[in-house]
C-alpha cells in the first residue's frame, strides 16, 4: 500500500487554502462592489441632499446658474416612461409567451423564440438612434397628429394628448422602452409558462376548457409569482435605461400633463449633464439623482429576484 508523502499532502493543503481564499475573496469582492457603489453615491450626493433636504425630491426647478436643483422632473419622467413601457410591453409579452407555449407549431418555436431574444441582445444605443431617426418622424407626422385630433378633446384623458407634435418626448421614450423591455418579459413569461406541469393543463382541457380558459385559469394562477417577478425585472430595466431614452426624451426639465411633451429621466439627465456640470452643488445633485435611481432600481430588482427565487424553490420542491 502506498503511503502518502506528508510533504505532498502538506503542499496540497496549502494549495487548497490558497484556492479557497482566492474564490472567497472574489465572492466577497462582489459584495464590496455593491457596497462601494452605494457608499460612493451617498458620499457624492451628500452635499446636495444636506443642502436641499427633502425639497430636493419635491421641486421641479433645475437651474445650474442659481444652483437650485430639484429632482421632481426627472423622477416624474422616469416613472411615467417606465409606466408607459410596462403598459405596452406586459400585454404584448404575455401574448408572445402565450403564442410560443400554446399555439406555435413546434418547428417555429425555436426560431421565433430566438428572434425575440435577439431583440434583447441589441444594444440600447441602437434603440436610441432608431427611435430618433425612424420612430420619431413617424410619430410626429402620423401618430401624434391623430392622437391630438381624436383624443385631445376627450374627457379625462384629453389632457394627456395636448400640445404640438414634436415627435420626441415622453410618449416616444415610453414606446422605445416598451420595445426594449418586451423580450425580457416575453422570455421570462414563456419560461414560467413552460414550468407548468402538463398534467394540470391536460386536466383543464379534459374538462372542456378552451385554450384561453386554460391559460387564464390554470397557467396564469400557477405562474403568478414568476409573472410578477418577470414584470418587475422588466420594470427595473426600464427604470434604469439610459441611452435609448436620452435620444428621444427631449431633455426638458419640466413636468407637463401631456404625454406628447418633452421631459427628462434620471438617467438621461445624468448622461447629458454630468461631464459639463460646473460647481460642486450641481455635480452633487446629479450624483444624488444617481443615488435615487440606485435606490429605486435596487428595491424593484431585489423584490423581483426574491419572487423569482421563491418560484425556483417551489419548482424544485416539485409543486
Amino acid at each position, binding site marked *: 500500500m502506498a503511503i502518502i508523502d506528508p510533504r505532498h499532502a502538506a503542499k496540497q493543503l496549502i*494549495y487548497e487554502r*490558497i*484556492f479557497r481564499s*482566492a*474564490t*472567497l*475573496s*472574489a*465572492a*466577497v469582492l*462582489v*459584495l464590496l*462592489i*455593491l457596497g*462601494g457603489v452605494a457608499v*460612493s*453615491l451617498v458620499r*457624492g450626493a451628500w452635499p446636495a441632499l444636506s443642502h436641499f433636504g427633502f425639497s430636493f425630491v419635491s421641486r421641479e426647478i433645475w437651474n445650474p446658474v442659481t444652483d437650485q436643483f430639484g429632482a421632481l422632473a426627472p423622477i416624474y419622467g422616469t416613472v411615467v416612461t417606465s409606466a408607459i413601457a410596462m403598459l405596452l410591453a406586459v400585454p*404584448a*409579452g*404575455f*401574448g408572445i409567451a402565450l403564442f*410560443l407555449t400554446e*399555439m406555435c407549431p413546434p418547428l417555429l418555436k425555436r426560431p421565433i423564440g430566438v*428572434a*425575440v*431574444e*435577439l*431583440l434583447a*441582445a*441589441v*444594444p*440600447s*444605443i*441602437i*434603440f436610441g*438612434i*432608431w427611435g430618433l*431617426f*425612424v420612430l420619431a418622424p413617424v410619430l410626429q407626422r402620423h401618430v401624434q397628429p391623430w392622437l391630438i385630433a381624436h383624443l385631445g378633446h376627450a374627457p379625462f384623458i384629453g389632457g394627456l394628448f395636448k400640445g404640438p407634435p414634436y415627435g420626441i418626448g415622453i410618449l416616444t421614450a415610453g414606446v422605445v422602452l416598451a*420595445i426594449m423591455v418586451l*423580450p425580457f418579459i*416575453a422570455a421570462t413569461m414563456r419560461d414560467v409558462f413552460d414550468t407548468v406541469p402538463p398534467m394540470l393543463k391536460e386536466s383543464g382541457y379534459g374538462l372542456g376548457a378552451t*385554450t384561453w*380558459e386554460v*391559460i387564464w385559469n390554470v397557467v396564469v394562477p400557477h405562474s403568478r409569482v414568476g409573472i410578477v417577478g418577470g414584470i418587475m*425585472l422588466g420594470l427595473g430595466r426600464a427604470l*434604469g*435605461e*439610459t*441611452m435609448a431614452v436620452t435620444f428621444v426624451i427631449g431633455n426638458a426639465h419640466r413636468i407637463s400633463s401631456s404625454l406628447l411633451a418633452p421631459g427628462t429621466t434620471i*438617467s438621461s439627465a*445624468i*448622461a447629458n449633464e*454630468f461631464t459639463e456640470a460646473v460647481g460642486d452643488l450641481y455635480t452633487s445633485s446629479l450624483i444624488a439623482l*444617481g443615488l435615487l*435611481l*440606485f435606490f429605486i432600481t435596487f428595491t424593484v*430588482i431585489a423584490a423581483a*429576484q426574491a419572487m423569482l427565487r421563491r418560484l425556483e424553490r417551489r419548482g424544485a420542491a416539485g409543486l
Partner: protein
Amino acid sequence: MNRRLFRKVKNGVFLLLSMIATMIGLACLAAILWTLISHGFAGMSSHLFTQMTPPPGSQGGLLNAIYGSAVMTLLGILIGSPIGVLAGTYLAEYGRNSKLSTAIRFINDVLLSAPSIIIGLFVYEIVVVRMGHFSAIAGALALAILAIPVTLRTTEDMLNLVPIGMKDSSAALGAYPWRTTLSVLYPAARSGIVTGLLLAIARISGETAPLLFTALNNQFWSTNLNAPMANLPVVIFQFALSPYKEWQDLAWAGALIITVTILVLSISARVLLAMLQNERGSGR
C-alpha cells in the same frame, strides 16, 4: 349554446391577439435590423477600417474607435471574468448554503440588472477623480464591473450542472476541492463557462453610459491606456446627434458593426449552450 359560442369567440379573440403581439415583436426586430443594415451599409466604405474618426465635414473611418472598444472590452473581460469565475466557483463549491452565499447570489443578481450609468458614476468617483483625468483604464474597469455578474452567474450554474458523481469520484481519490475543480469541474463545464464569457463580452461591448464619464472619447489614434480612448458607443452617441452627414453615416456603420458583433456572440453562446445540453442529455 350561446355561452359556448361566447367562450369560443373569446378564445379566438385572445389567441388572435397573442399572434398579433408576436408579429409586432418580430416586426420591431425586423424594422430595427432593416434600418441598421440599410443605413449601416450606406455608411460602409473602404475607409471604415483604415482611417480615424474625422473632423466634421471630412471623410474618415472608425479605426480608433474600433480599436479602443476592442482593447477596453478585452481588458474588461480579462479583469472581470476571473473574478466572476472564481466567485462563481466559490458559490458552487464551498458556499452552498451559507448565509454569505445567499447574500452574494442576491447582490450579484441585483448588479446584473443595475443601471450601467450608476457603475459609470462609481468608477468616475473612485478612479477618474483620483487619477485626475479620464482614461481607458477607467473605462475598462467600468466594463469589468459589468462583466462580473454575468460570468459569476453562468459559472455557478454550469458548475452546478456537472454530475455529482464526477465530483464524488474525484474526492474519493483523495483530491482536495481545488484539485477537483481545476482538473474535473472546469474541463467538464468548459463550454458553459465559455458561454458565460461570450455573453459577458456581448453585454459590455454595447454599453455606452459607463464609458461616458470614464474613457470619454478621443478623435485620434491612441494606445495610451492612461488617457481618454476612442470607443464605438460614445462615437456613435456623438456622431448620431450631429448634423453632419458623414458623421451620421459613420454612426450607422458603427452601430451595424456593434450589433453584428453582439448578435454573432449571442448566437454562438446559444449554440454552445445547446451543444452542452445535448452532451448532458446523451448521458456523457
